[in-house]
């Protein structure tokens, strides 16, 4: 059996949700660039009227534009990688890269909840899996964890190799385990041979994912 669980409305909705979030972020990038460029234009108009130009102010506005171009470039690069996750039903995937991409795509949601989202200790692990479904599974588990957390918390996600697959750990330092179960994404978890366990002693939730069975 090949894992292709996202040929469904849920998969399309996930793609739409991420695309909407990314496009919103790009709008903000353009908005900042627009105001910084407008500020530079204002400085030059004032110079035409005899006011001296302050080089520091020009430099600050130019730096802002350059910073936003870098920010926009990273956003587009992540969106491009996400779009290409649909290229193949199953392939061998670098899970550190997959986790970093999912964290990047989910950071805006965490920001809106004022929760810091970060990758923790990650072993180099590769897994034969459906790239799009894995991104969706990781995103869903992170969102479920965020829903149980408070503003000011930090969610740390780690990665290690386990027999036949990989284990993603979710923890919030100083807090209870953030992900209690897979209730909000159980059909996808079941389809991907994934399961959630909770270790209350260490305050760690574990999302274990097994390799896809069958061939491409």
């Amino acid at each position, binding site marked *: 059996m090949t894992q292709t669980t996202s040929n469904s409305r849920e998969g399309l909705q996930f793609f739409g949700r991420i695309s909407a979030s990314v*496009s*919103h972020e790009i*709008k903000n990038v*353009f908005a*900042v660039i*627009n105001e910084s460029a*407008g500020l530079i234009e204002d400085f030059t108009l004032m110079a035409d009227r005899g006011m001296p130009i302050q080089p520091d102010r020009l430099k600050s506005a130019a730096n802002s534009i350059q*910073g936003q171009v870098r920010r926009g470039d990273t956003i587009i690069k992540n969106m491009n990688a996400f779009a290409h996750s649909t290229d193949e039903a199953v392939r061998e995937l670098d899970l550190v890269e997959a986790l970093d991409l999912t964290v990047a795509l989910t950071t805006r949601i965490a920001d809106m909840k004022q929760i810091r989202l970060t990758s923790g200790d990650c072993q180099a692990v590769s897994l034969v899996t459906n790239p799009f479904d894995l991104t969706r599974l990781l995103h869903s588990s992170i969102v479920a964890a965020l829903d149980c957390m408070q503003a000011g918390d930090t969610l740390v996600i780690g990665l290690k190799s386990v027999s036949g697959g990989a284990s993603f750990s979710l923890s919030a330092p100083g807090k209870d385990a953030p992900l209690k179960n897979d209730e909000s994404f159980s059909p996808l978890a079941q389809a991907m041979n994934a399961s959630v366990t909770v270790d209350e002693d260490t305050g760690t939730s574990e999302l274990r994912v097994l390799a896809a069975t069958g061939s491409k």
Partner: protein
Amino acid sequence: MKVLLVDDEVELVSAMAERLEFRGVDADWTDNGEAALEMASRTDYAVAVLDMKMPRLSGLDLMERLSSQHPDMKFIFLSGHGSEADFKAGCAAGCNYLIKPIQIDDLIARINQVAG
């Protein structure tokens, strides 16, 4: 006339405030709703320009809080296209909004319009 700008993009809102000042509009700014409430308790703002999507307090939530404490305050919303649906769902008819990125002259025209 004093104007309050609230947007979690600091570089955006600070540049907007400066550009408004160049055009004779007295504008204060902050990047969060809680600070906006505190500023409005100390200063009489005629118009508040609010980003729709902000952490913790959304633009609509902030408008409700501000308008209950300052009934005469007028509001303009800044929206990315992704939040238009939220805006239309949550905002009563007659709300003023501009879609990012904005033109500063459009914002000034809208400020003057709502301030009457």
